[in-house]
Every structure is written in structure tokens, then in C-alpha cells.
């Protein structure tokens, strides 16, 4: 067990989202974000929505913003491709958009099926005008997500934080 007193980086993300008054949290089931998703589900100030595809998160965020609420989309890099057409909405409507992406096919990935979308993720997001932040170590998570939230909600940008596989750890399929 981890004897360190530093909080888990997913708990730190939850705190940042709370500090920025995020009210709606969209996600598809994800091991990397799992602990964060559960914290949001238990929160009294957040509404957590499970999606059938990541694409739904963009119009949901647009609708939430129309109604005066901030939101975040939690997804894996494998879901990014599903969002690309509607990822144009933040640019067209000019509304703040924040997404946190757990990377696959990035660092020691064992599953060859994850590489194409994992490697394509930064490029397709950039092509759609999404501002990219990237974080590889737990110590940088809080400051990076906070900066991303400021760029989104104060600066009016579409922002993605790539939580690199080096941070999350290599998936080992149940072997602890």
C-alpha cells in the first residue's frame, strides 16, 4: 500500500472540478478515471451522466452551458475519435469545453488495437482546434487540470488534458 500522505491524483482532480463549480460530469465507464467517476457519483453538487458514446458529451456540454452550468467530459483516448465531428461545436458556438482523457496506446501498451487512436488522439484534437495539456507525473496533475479549467471556463477555450499512460500505469488485465 502507498504510505505517502499525498492524495491520489484522481482525488485531486475531483477537488479541482469542485473548485471550478463543475456541475455536470459525462463519462463512459473507464478504469483510468474510475476512482474520479465514483467520487463525482457520490458528490451532492455534481450530476453524473453515463453516455452510450463519447460523442454525446459535446452537445450535453453545450446544453449545460446554454443553461448556465459548467461540465466536464471524462473519456479514454479510444473514445476521442467518436467525438470529432461534434468537437467542432465549441468552436462554432464559442463555449467553454473541458475534457480529461486517459491515454491508451501511449506508453508500454500491450494491446495493438489501442495504438491507432491513442497515437492519433493529439493530432485529431489539434486539428479541431482543441487546446492540449499533457501530464505524465502525479505531482503535476492538480496544477495542470486547474490551468486547463481556467483556460476553458475563464478563457472560453475548448481544452483537453491528456493523462498520459505513464501516469496511469500500463493496463495489466486484473493482475495486481
Amino acid at each position, binding site marked *: 500500500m502507498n504510505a505517502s500522505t499525498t492524495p491520489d491524483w484522481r482525488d485531486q482532480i475531483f477537488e479541482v472540478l469542485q473548485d471550478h463549480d463543475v456541475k455536470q460530469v459525462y463519462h463512459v465507464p473507464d478504469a483510468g478515471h474510475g476512482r474520479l467517476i465514483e467520487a463525482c457519483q457520490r458528490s451532492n453538487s455534481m450530476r453524473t451522466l*453515463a453516455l452510450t458514446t463519447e460523442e454525446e458529451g459535446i452537445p450535453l456540454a453545450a446544453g449545460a*452551458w446554454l443553461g448556465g452550468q459548467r461540465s466536464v467530459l471524462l473519456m479514454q483516448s479510444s473514445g476521442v475519435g467518436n467525438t470529432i465531428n461534434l468537437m*467542432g461545436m465549441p468552436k462554432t458556438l464559442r463555449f467553454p469545453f473541458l475534457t480529461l482523457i486517459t491515454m491508451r496506446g501511449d506508453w508500454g501498451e500491450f494491446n495493438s488495437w489501442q495504438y491507432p487512436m491513442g497515437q492519433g488522439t493529439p493530432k485529431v484534437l489539434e486539428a479541431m482546434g482543441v487546446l492540449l495539456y499533457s501530464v505524465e507525473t502525479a505531482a503535476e496533475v492538480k496544477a495542470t487540470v486547474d490551468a486547463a479549467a481556467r483556460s476553458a471556463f475563464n478563457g472560453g477555450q475548448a481544452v483537453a488534458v491528456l493523462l498520459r499512460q505513464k501516469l496511469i500505469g500500463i493496463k495489466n488485465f486484473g493482475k495486481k
Partner: protein
Amino acid sequence: MSPNTQKATLQRRPLVKKILEGADDNLLVIAGLGSSNWDITEAGDRPLNMPLWGSMGAPVGMGLGLALAQPKKRILVITGDGDMLMSLGSLATVAAQQPDNLAIVVLDNEKFGETGNQATHTSPLNNGPTDSGAGTDLAMIAKGCGIADTGTVRDASEVAALVKDVRTKKGPVFRLVKVMVEKLEFVMPPQDGAHLKDRFRQALLGHP
């Protein structure tokens, strides 16, 4: 004749006009791209309309995000069969949240109107070599997704109840309305997305 092969008799423009009659600050409207956008605009452009010019498959998600953010307002999504077919999963996401202030109206003419009236999947299965769909029933899909209050409207005698249901009944409400294929004038709202969004927020929240 099975109900699925009845010829549609309802006209979308007067129908949408009736649905939106007397719209006040309590009614927030999102319309899908193409015909639904022109329909709500002919009924009267207003800041609390969010007519989409693109983003096919987005209206139901937008309506849900808005409904959860504004639980005291009535949210009405008006869109077409082609748009709805592109985001069937969003109906399951709506069902999971059960927003009591959200109504979805799908105007189903069984065609992709903006691209030359090609058949959508809601067209009958064996409708000739160039006009066949699958007979897809979007109201059944909505019900299957977990939206308990769904229905299909085909007749002028059902319109008054339709208007009442989508304006006032406890949501989520889903109504499929079979409408005629018509060639109608484009009645266009402002196109700039940031402007549409800002005027909506200004009217709703008092700031852009």
C-alpha cells in the same frame, strides 16, 4: 392497411406553429439542423430558440444538458427523423436521467430533406429500388430505451393533445409525428453560432 403504410397528412409548419404558440420565457427550444430549424424560425425567431445549422445528432443531448441545468424551465427539442437516427443512444441517456422538464418531438417525413429527399430508415422496407428504408419506428426505440411516455401522432385530431403533452406533461416525453414530404421555403434565423448562444444566455441568465 397497417398503420405504418398510412400516408402522412400533417404539415410540419402549421404543426410547429401550434406547438410553439404563446411561447414565453419558460419555454426553451432547440431545433435540429435543416427543416426543423426553418420550421421553428417561421413560427417566430426568438432568443430562447437555439436553431442548429449543423451538428447533426446533437439536439437531444443539448436538450438534456439544458434540462438538467434549468430544472424549472420547459425544454423542447424539435428535430427530424434523419437527425434522430444519428443519435439513438442519446435516448437511452435521457432515460437514465429521467428529466421531468424535457420533451422531444421528432417530425418524421421518412426522408433526408436537406440532401434531396432520400429515404431514411423510417421509410417502409419495400418501397421501391430508390426509396426503401427499414420501417424503423423511432417511438418504439424511445420506449425501448426506457422513455415510458412515448407516442405517435398521425392525425389532425391528435394535434391538440400533442401540443398539451409536449408543453406541459411530466417528462421525459417523446412524440413521433408523421409529417408530409413538402417543398417549403427556407426561413432562416441568424447563422452565427456564438451569437445564437449569447442571445440565448442573455435572455435566460441575464448575461452572455
